[in-house]
């Protein structure tokens, strides 16, 4: 088994794997993609290996267009620079983002509301910003991507404590209060959220209201199950479709993009490795040259 958690019932893939494969289809060939670390990046690598070989991936550390020979665990791994077209500074990459050179960004988050506003700063719980229940990492480049990139794809596991009526802290603005022109009014340049890829289906946004609606569901998932996992009265597409099962070629490409299963599998997978030698061997064996 590859990926986090169990296989989806009766299937040969995990929910994380389906999320990665679904996200990968959001990238188009020749686009420039600003991708955060973790599953979003694996989705980007996968797109390059499947339908979008000329996808240009950009890292906030200052790497533009690496070949993606191996997976990264942080945006600052040396792997992020492998064979890059341009190795430059962080501030230049953010400037280029602000100029509108980047088409798509993929973000994760801990909380999201119906307008696609994201929280990656803190879960307040009984506390507040200064003494929260859970201190999260903060914006990183997430706010910047969400502010200025052409369109944003969000990846989050669908869980009720994540899909909330009101996020504790808007780290990365989506459509704010959903009022027409809300983003432009505060001075934001980018297009805002285009999709939320979850562990149970994909949400998109109504252009008029900036509100998220359920667009497609995964095989075997019930709409009611999704409604129960969302903290507001969810709009469901009248033309709701079911995502197809991934092809074996897609699954094997995905698994070789994260050969030690450390991204999709997380901490558990580390325990299955005998040591750094096996990690080195796996990386070299699956490196695309």
């Amino acid at each position, binding site marked *: 088994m590859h990926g986090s958690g169990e296989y989806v019932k009766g299937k040969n893939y995990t929910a994380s794997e389906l999320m990665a494969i679904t996200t990968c289809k959001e990238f188009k060939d020749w686009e420039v993609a600003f991708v955060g670390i973790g599953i979003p990046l694996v989705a980007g690598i996968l797109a390059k290996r499947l339908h979008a070989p000329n996808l240009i991936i950009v890292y906030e550390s200052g790497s533009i267009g690496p070949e993606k020979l191996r997976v990264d665990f942080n945006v600052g791994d040396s792997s992020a620079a492998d064979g890059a077209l341009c190795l430059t500074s*962080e501030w230049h990459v953010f400037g280029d983002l602000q100029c509108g050179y980047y088409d798509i960004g993929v973000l994760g988050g801990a909380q999201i509301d119906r307008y696609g506003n994201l929280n990656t700063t803190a879960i307040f719980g009984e506390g507040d910003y200064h003494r929260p229940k859970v201190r999260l990492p903060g914006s990183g480049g997430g706010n910047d991507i969400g502010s200025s990139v052409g369109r944003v794809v969000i990846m989050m596991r669908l869980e009720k404590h994540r899909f909330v009526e009101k996020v504790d*802290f808007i780290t990365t603005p989506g459509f704010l209060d959903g009022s027409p022109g809300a983003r432009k009014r505060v001075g934001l340049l980018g297009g805002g959220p285009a999709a939320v890829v979850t562990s149970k289906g994909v949400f998109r946004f109504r252009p008029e209201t900036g509100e998220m609606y359920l667009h497609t569901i995964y095989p075997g998932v019930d709409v009611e199950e999704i409604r129960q996992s969302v903290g507001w009265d969810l709009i469901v597409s009248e033309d709701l479709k079911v995502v197809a099962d991934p092809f074996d070629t897609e699954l094997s490409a995905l698994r070789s993009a994260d050969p030690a299963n450390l991204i999709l599998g997380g901490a558990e997978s580390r325990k299955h490795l005998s040591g750094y030698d096996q990690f080195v061997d796996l990386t070299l064996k699956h490196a695309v040259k």
Partner: protein
Amino acid sequence: MVNEVAKGGDSLSSSSKANKLMTLKEAVSSYVKDGSSITFGGFIGRDCLAAVHEIIRQGVKDLLVIDDSKTDVIDMLVGAGCVRRWEGAYAGYGSIGLANNVRRAVERGIPFSVEMEDWSNAAVSMRFLAGGLNLPFMATRSMLGSDMIKYNSRIKVIDDPYSGTPVALVPAARPDVAIIHAQKADPMGNAQIWGFTGNDENKARAAKHTIITCEEIITTEQVRSQGNLTLIPFYCVDAVVQVPYACFPQSCYGYYAYDVLFCGDYHEMSKTREGFLSWLDRFVYGCKDHAEYCRQVGWKRLESMTRLERQFNRI
């Protein structure tokens, strides 16, 4: 640094201008003081962990860390009780998880409460760009509409005097010290960096004192043979220290790959305060210097990461 006092040598004799080599212990004790503001080069990759260990060993207190995105640097300094305040964008472990020591400090005041001031990475980049240009502020189109503005009064939203549309201002960052790891530097302090460069060119210029650590010392003649790769000119630099494997378990482009398993083990250990303290005992307090840390990690392991990296990148 601000205009009044040029660094990188105004008070130095000619021979110290030509040769700024010193040990890491000397460099840290000369420039990193209780209460200093500090930043680190790299971007969760090429961060100088060896300097972090030395700061912890020297028992420095009350640091103000101003930085973009950090992993081990901020988590270890916070856990070891060196930090009073963080002004930054990201303190976490990427795909591995959250920063356990940062969480304990912020959520429960263990070992001390740490003030957090949130910025985005682009905002921090602009703060260092302003600092490196000795300008008071920079504009940015990030953070608009976000709650960072609500909780951070130093972000000022103004109407652009040219177009009238809203834009955010952020103040220059001018820390007391920057510690930046380069692949190569000469004894004068000209630092050459390969791979992505983060905000290092601006951090080095903005800081009152800059310590360059490096994998290799090269001659000034070698610097001159490829001047386009000198990211940091000597006049921004106060100290040059050769520290091979200074970034381990992080990567150093062209020298060694990221040891995600070592970092994962740290993350597991640091889930409890006791685990973190025993990790500190073993890898920081138990090692008198970076060479002992390397021995503790194991040279074979370090060399494996070099072998891995050199399959992909060579300088």
